[in-house]
Each structure stands twice: as structure tokens, then as C-alpha cells.
């Protein structure tokens, strides 16, 4: 049997919020442990996306971990593929594969590659890693779904730095032409990239303006507010228009010494870092 969708107007009760907060905390801890084990990967842009993925995979998306290839499932493409640690942690928590498998990330013969590989990892709908390509794939998926009469939604997560890739705007220009109101692009707007702030590297006059002028419905949200994320993702949107959800986030969110620090874009998490980070998260969890 296909899984039940969470209905759009169900809202979140206290129990739901506690559950989602618990998942977000667990995912954050798994991200840090995974990165400590692999001594590689991208902590900052993984931690900024924890609540977005939690809200999608634990409340919003119609999915069934027991049937990763269920044809009517909602689709998710992690266009910012370097945030694979948070993707894998989320999929593991959701039951696509055992949490213990996270320790194999980036090791020989692992199903968990440095960047997502749909041919290896259960639950990964599309391979990604070369920045700027995921939104085009999602435009094709959403168009293909509409043409075939499927009701599923397509979600794409991009980085704000990634939006410097020209292909993003080719895709952004095309989605409104095809009336893809079954497509949601979520920008993890953490304002940092590898070499500095996005404003230093390549400023945009207005990120919302760019999407809006391309013909998208544009909404902004606090990307760490689970209640707000779920609400905006489940709300009805403009018919005939794709939705760009610009999520204000903090790179390295949840770990004091990683937050808003550009060097944590891609820095190995040492044993000491891990201990301190997990201690901080334990205190947060106890509150």
C-alpha cells in the first residue's frame, strides 16, 4: 500500500514538534560522527540543511522507505551534493539503511559515496555533485510527472553559492515556461561558500528578485524553524508556478565554533571537535 501523505492542513501538534526536533538533533549528531569518521566532507553546508531535510523527510514528502522506488513517491534531488553527510544521516534515520552504515561513508566499496550516487544508495533519487545540475534534472522530472499524469512533487535543494552556476538560471528560466507547480526549489541560503562570503565572492543584487523575475513564486523562511518550514512546504501554492523557497540558514548551525565560520565549509572534524560539538548538542537536547 502506498504511504499516506501528511495532509496539507493537518498542522503540527506538540507531539509532532518534539518528534521533529528529536530527529533534527539525531541527524546533526550523526553528521558530525560521520564526518569525524571519514575525516573529509563538508560540515558547514550539511549542518545548515538539517532542519530542511528533517521537515521534508519526516513530515512533508510522500515516501516509503520500504519501497525506495515506489513510482508515486515524491522526489528529492540534493543539487548541492557535497552536503551528502546530512542527506545520508536523514535517509538512515528515516529507515532507508542502517545508521551503522554511515561509518562506511567515503570508504572502499561503500554504498555511501562522497557525493550522492543513485545507483548505490537506497533512497537517493538522483546522483549529484557537479554543482548547478540538479535543478535541470528536477525540471525534467516535474515535467515528466505532469506529462505522465503523476501527482508526485519534486524537491530540489540548492546552495546559495551554487546559484553562481549559469545552468541554474537556464533551469530557472525553463520551469515557469512549463508551468511546473509540482516543483519546489529550496535554496540553503547560508551566505558562505568555500573561499569566503557569497557577497565577497559573487554578490547578487537580490536573490529573491532573480527567482521572481524568472517567473517563480518566491517565499522566504527561517531554515531552522521546523514549524515554519513544514507550514510553508505544505501550504497550497500558486497554480502554474514553481515555488522557490529561500531558506535563511546558518552555516555550521548548532555547533558554536562552526557557525558562520567559512573554514568549516570543508574541514575534517577532529576527535576533540566532535566531543565538544556533541557536548553542546547534548545540552541543547536536554533543554
Amino acid at each position: 500500500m502506498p504511504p499516506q501523505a501528511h495532509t496539507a492542513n493537518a498542522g503540527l501538534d506538540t507531539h509532532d514538534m518534539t518528534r521533529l526536533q528529536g530527529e533534527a538533533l539525531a541527524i546533526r549528531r550523526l553528521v558530525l560522527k560521520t564526518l569525524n569518521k571519514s575525516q573529509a566532507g563538508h560540515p558547514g553546508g550539511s549542518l545548515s540543511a538539517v532542519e530542511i531535510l528533517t521537515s521534508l523527510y519526516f513530515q512533508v514528502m510522500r515516501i516509503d522507505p520500504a519501497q525506495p522506488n515506489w513510482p508515486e513517491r515524491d522526489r528529492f534531488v540534493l543539487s548541492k551534493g557535497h552536503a551528502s553527510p546530512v542527506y545520508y544521516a536523514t535517509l538512515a534515520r528515516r529507515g532507508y539503511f542502517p545508521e551503522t552504515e554511515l561509518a562506511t561513508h567515503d570508504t572502499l566499496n561503500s554504498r555511501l559515496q562522497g557525493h550522492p550516487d543513485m545507483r548505490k544508495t537506497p533512497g537517493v533519487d538522483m546522483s549529484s555533485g557537479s554543482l548547478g545540475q540538479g535543478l535541470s534534472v528536477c525540471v525534467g522530472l516535474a515535467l515528466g510527472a505532469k506529462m505522465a499524469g503523476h501527482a508526485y512533487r519534486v524537491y530540489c535543494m540548492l546552495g546559495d553559492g551554487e546559484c553562481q552556476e549559469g545552468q541554474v538560471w537556464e533551469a530557472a528560466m525553463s520551469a515557469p515556461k512549463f508551468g511546473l507547480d509540482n516543483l519546489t526549489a529550496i535554496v540553503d541560503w547560508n551566505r558562505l561558500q568555500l573561499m569566503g562570503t557569497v557577497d565577497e565572492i559573487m554578490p547578487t543584487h537580490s536573490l529573491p528578485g532573480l527567482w521572481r523575475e524568472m517567473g517563480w513564486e518566491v517565499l522566504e523562511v527561517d531554515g531552522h524553524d521546523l514549524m515554519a518550514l513544514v507550514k510553508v512546504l505544505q501550504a497550497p501554492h500558486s497554480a502554474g508556478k514553481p515555488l522557490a523557497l529561500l531558506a535563511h540558514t546558518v552555516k555550521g548551525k548548532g555547533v558554536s565554533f562552526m557557525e558562520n565560520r567559512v573554514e568549516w565549509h570543508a574541514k575534517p572534524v577532529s576527535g576533540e571537535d566532535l566531543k565538544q560539538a556533541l557536548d553542546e548538542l547534548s545540552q541543547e537536547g536536554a533543554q
Partner: protein
Amino acid sequence: MSQVDLSSGCGPTIACREAFGQALLELGREVPNLLVLDADLGSSTRASVFASEFPERFIQVGIAEQNMVGMAAGLALAGWIPVTSTLACFASKRALDQVRASVAQPNLNVKITGGYSGILAGKTGITHQSIEDLAIFRAMPQMTVLAPSDGIETRAAIRAAVEYRGPVYIRLTRDPMPTVMPPDYVFHIGKAVPMRSGSDVALLSTGWMLLPTLEAATILSGEGVQATVLHLPSLKPFDAEAVVEVARHTGAVVTVEDHSILGGLGAAVAEILSERMPTWMRRVGICDCYAESAPNEDLLTKYGLTPANIAAQARELLASRTASRA
């Protein structure tokens, strides 16, 4: 496969791009989930023929090849069989990383067609010529690479590509040329096509260069040199056995392609023979340079893609081999 019977001579002239458009149209009627994506070149490539009958399955993406290939990947994920249409130069370079990361690596069922390949790109010049596409896609794991010759083989290759499950690049030619393949020709991915037998030298062709290669064999025959002609429209997978066999049979091999001599047919043959049957060889093709804009005939003559030059290279090869044994 049995040798193609050329005794009846060449068939009617068919423009290869028209054959491409017709093939899409025929397949569109048979395959309900076939889609054609176009980056605003459909009237040139003749993908537009498909649009006239199946407007709802013709997706115009505008001048945005990277997005076109990414969309094709997404459409394949949604269960469609997308065929992308643009020029070979753009399919293989402008959208290269999209083909690699969004199509070949996830092994998606997308057909990438490249029109106006080689130096026969009208009078557009080097930006629109494509002399590296075979090398590029041949080096890409999980890609199938096809380069049909005449209109009949073009039509058959498109059919074979659509019937095959997985990423395929099909290199296409624009121009009208006489047909040499029989009307009931069936394209077999991975198989060479023996066109003519002779024991003195083997001429190996890919793409439309089959036609001048056959003419070169006729020239040589008039001089008492009997040439085998083996056509290799499937660059990947590649019929290594057939290549080794003609090398064993003749001891002298000339490769012929409207492509750089680096990385394409000549390279594929040299790779196989140097390991399995070291053989005297010459490669006819574009000699690691960008050509220029000019009428086709002038280009072909200057850059050596003529029956006369193929025959001359064969003669020179045989003379060198004889001299080395003296």
C-alpha cells in the same frame, strides 16, 4: 553479419538529416514514451519533423544545451525516453559535464544526438565543426557511441539507440549523399559491417566517410590493389574481433574518419591492434588542427577527406611496408 551486397551500386540520395527526422517520426508512432528535446536548432537538425506530428512530445528548451541535457536526465527518471537534438559541437562540449554527471554516471536512458558533425557544418567554420566528439564520448564509461554513414544507416541507428536501454551518443551528418546500405538494413550496436573483401589492404571507416572509402577501394582496385572495406559505425562498444581479423587478413590498415585522428576511430583501431595484432597503419582524418569555413568540397580536399587521398595513403602505406622488408 553477412557482407553488404554492393553489386547493385548506390541507392538514391538521401539527406542524412532528413533520415534523422523521419526516424524520429516513425519511432514516435511506435514508442509512446519517446520525447524529443530541442535547443532551438530543430529546423536545422530536422528534429522539427517530429514536432509537426507530436507537438505534445516535442520539448523546446531554447538555446540552453546544459539545461536540455539535465532535463533529459530528469525525464528519463520519470520513465520517458528523451532524445536531445543539437549540433555535435554543442552536445559534446557545451553540455559535456551534464552528459557525464547527469546522464552517463547515473546510467540514464537518454539519447544524445549530435548533428552537423565533423567538418561538414556548412560554411559555419570551426566553432560549429566537431572533430573531438567521438574521442570525448568514447572515453566516457557507460556511453554507447554510434556514427552511422548514409541515410539508411542513420535511420537504423536511431532505431537501435532507442531500442537500447542506456545512454547513447549518435553522431549525425547533415548532407545528402547516395545510399549504400540496403533498404532492409538493421543496425547492430557493437558490430562492424563488412562492405568489401580484398587481401592487399584494409580500409576501415566510420560515419559518412564510408562513401569516400568505398570509392577509394574502387580506385585502388583499378590499380590492382584489392582492398577490404570494413565499416565501424559503432565506436563503442567496438568490434575488436572484426578489426583484428581484417588486420590479420591484409597486414595493412588505413582508418578513415571525419574527425580528429586523435581519440576516434584511428585511435580505437591502433589501441586494439597494438595489443593484439601489431599492424602497419595510416590514419586519415583531421590532423590535430582546427579547419576553417569554406564550401564542403574545398574543405574535404584541403583536409584530405577524399577518395584520392585515402587511396594515396593506402599506396604509401603499402610502399613503406615493402621498403621496410627490403
